[in-house]
């Protein structure tokens, strides 16, 4: 299998799915990004990214319960697959190993 790469936004969304656990669905992820990362996010972009990650096998999904706040509509809850976790780990490790090669910078 050719090595899969993740884009920056994909990685972010994947990580958040891992973070949010049972509560990982489109609107919640978008909100998390907005509050935690302080960046504006396009809801449709989150959805499309989730679908793409699911296509790649890093996520799986199932329909969860609806709430009044959602007008009774059910949520699609995403959970990270083992492949997804492995991918995140691999990314983190490769980043760390690269980071170690950076000469120690003094922030003055």
């Amino acid at each position, binding site marked *: 299998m050719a090595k899969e790469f993740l884009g920056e936004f994909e990685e972010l969304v994947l990580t958040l799915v891992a973070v949010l656990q049972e509560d990982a*669905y*489109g*609107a919640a992820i*978008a*909100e998390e990004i907005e509050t935690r990362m302080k960046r504006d996010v*396009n*809801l*449709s*972009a989150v*959805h*499309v990214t989730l*679908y*793409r990650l699911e296509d790649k096998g890093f996520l799986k999904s199932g*329909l969860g319960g*609806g*709430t009044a*706040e*959602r*007008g*009774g*509509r*059910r*949520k*699609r809850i995403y959970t990270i697959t083992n492949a997804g976790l492995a991918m995140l780990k691999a990314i983190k490790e490769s980043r760390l190993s690269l980071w170690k090669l950076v000469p120690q910078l003094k922030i003055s």
Partner: protein
Amino acid sequence: MNQSVDKNDIYGWSLRFLQWFCPPHLREEIEGDLIQKFERDVKQFGEKHAKRRLLWNVIRFFRPGILLRNNSTINLTPFYMLTNYFKVAVRFMFRHKTFSAINILGLTMGFTGALLLFIWIAQELSFEQFHTDKDRLYLGWNRSLENGQLVCSETTPRVLAPTLKEDYASIEAAASYAKWGVSHLFTVGDTRLLKTSGVFADASLLNILSFTFLKGDPQKAFADPSSIIITEKFAKQLFGEKEAFGEAVTLSQEDYKFEFTVSGVLKDLPPNTDFKFEYLISFAFLESLGEKDTFWGNNSVTTLVKLKEGYDLTSVNESIKDTEKRHYADGQHIEIFLYPLTKMRLYSRFENGVAVGGRIEVIRMLGILGVCLLAIASINFINLSTARAQRRSKEVAVRKVTGAFRATLIVQFLCEAILMAASAGVISLVFVYLLLPFFNTLISQQLVLDLGNSTLWLSAAAIIFGIGFLAGSYPALYISAFQPVQILKGIGVSSHRSILRNLLVVFQFGFAVTLVVSAIVIGKQITHVQNRDAGYSRNNLIYIPLTGDMPKNFEAFKNELSQSGTSVSITKVSAPITEQWSSTGGIEWQGKNPEDRTDFERIYMDDTPSATFGLQVLSGRDFDLQKFSTDSTAVILNETALRTMGFDNPIGEVIKDNGLEWHVIGVVKDFVFTSPFRKTEPIVVFSGAKLSRAFNVAYIKLNSTKAPQEHLTTLSSLVTKYNPEYPFEYHFADLDYQRKFENIQTTLLITTIFTSVAIFIACLGLLGLATHTAEARVKEIGIRKVMGGSALSITRLLSYASIKPILIAVIIFTPLAWVSINWWLQSFAYRVSLDIWVFVMAALSILVIALITIGTQTIRAANANPVDSLRNE
């Protein structure tokens, strides 16, 4: 918040929009997320804001990642079928090569012809459309009452532009523009060029018309009177690769020399403008020489006007109409009005003071021609497809039995039609690209095929697919309606849709007949005018311009030329006899009706005009200034002028022109002045001996003992001797005369080409139909032959059916052809009269062509061995 969805609410509307485009299996979760987001936004920003954000969020879901998301409801079957349709269509095309070739060839020719015409029309319609503020640009016109008729002319006094600007608040800018065709000699270093392509203009012209400056500032270019603006091409000729801007150039006119500075270089003028020039000189320069033309009676320039924004043409025209009357006591019969610049090219023919059309009529004819070509080609397509329908009947039946809907069959046959049209379209685009340069030379236009222009591609695609669709829809409807049961039982379909088919053939050939009639009549008109007695002899007649030192040295030049035996007779003339120089309605004579404002052509000549031009003197004598010094105030009339003036004994009568008195010394036979297509005008030949600068050219009758070309060397050396500054320039009178036929010859050529194309396409169709009839009736022919029918009788039988619609076409369309060609002929004052033989000839030629086409097929069918056709049953 409750879920009641108000129909006019942005909230409900957004969600319905989402439902419309979102794949169903994603809808619920997305909707949920959107609503959740909305609820939070309401708390944070308020309801109004939140709704707007919701709509924006919904719109952002309209993206391929959502739209095409595992959309299992997209049914791919139609696409599979589409490939199948195309595969079948291509196979069918290759199996019936003749049929496909006829079809595609016909369509290609139709498309090519029509596209060429449409490109031409588009160019004509784009004239002067590139000026910014084109809707506020107008030309000043004169409308004067002459002999009870309102005569309109766009040649106006020089003083009109400044007066309009001065007198009326509605006018933002006004400029005079004059193309007088003066010859100027340009000198830059060693480069010397003689040009007549210059224009005098006011500085404000550059604010009115939008020409692109490569160098220089339109606001400042004419700040200095002795500055000149030249086009890029002319700059290259003068300065080569050197930068022209700011350079000095010497300009000589007759004895004068002026220094000019190039203050602007224009991008070469676009082909779609009637303002054509290579250099612009400011009126301020002319007027700095001391001649400021403020005389209202001198109509010599074009006046361009730019109105201020928000002014309406009718009210402006109402306010300015008395401008000339107020300033000019003799101009009480003249009104001034403005006419839109954008209408000048196509709508500037006036009759009795009202705009009645103009070139647009030609353009409309071209449009009709183009549409008819397309129609003929599509008719071919329809006829051939329906005629061939039975060939497809089994296929249709099988498709229907295996579950095809009628709609899918229609789609199939439409696809085929569009495939045909598209292949013809692609070929014809290539043809148009290759043919355009030739077409341009034919019609002497500069059409450009701008391949980067999306409008061109869109309209070409629209035409091609539109025709494919239109021409394909009838056969598609027809074929898809076949009853499978009957076909599979072996009854087959009758191809008796022949009424429609015949009607279409009638139309095709009717159009062809009309075109043939036009081509014949145009040809006859040309020969008719060619054979017109010009009244003067053009053989060995040559003229040279009187430029530079020539007027000064003329007598010496003339003497030496006649001594050398080159010339028989020389006459100085105000302008070439093939060009109008001056005309007047103000000539007075004894017994003139004061209301009469008949226009007389005014020509100035000196010695022996009748000898030089070979005019036939009916009474009196030629000018002879050597013998009679009084001849400096003499005039010669032509017959028509004599008739207009009504003298019984013309010799010795005195006429008045421009306040001077002239006496008539001779009458000559009528001769063709300017163009042989014009009717004979009354002409007064004035002796210009006493007027300074009356003459611009000298006509030389060469000695006929030698060929004219052999005289040219002597002539050239003498001209250069007496006028060393200027390059030697000469014109043959007969060539100039012949040039008057260029326009009509172009018309003839275009008509002939398109006639041939139309006939060719129509015959292709006929050939296809004849082949089909012969094939369809092959058994019948076999039986007839077995029963003793002769080949001749069978040929007659088969041909008669095919020739009948063509006969009908001839009968219906010849009167129409008569009407249209008669209308065209009306545009010539001197024209051929129509006779019945033209129509008989046209009809016969069409019939013969059609018979030959049909004959090739019917004779073969009639001669075929009946055994071959009857063996299998």
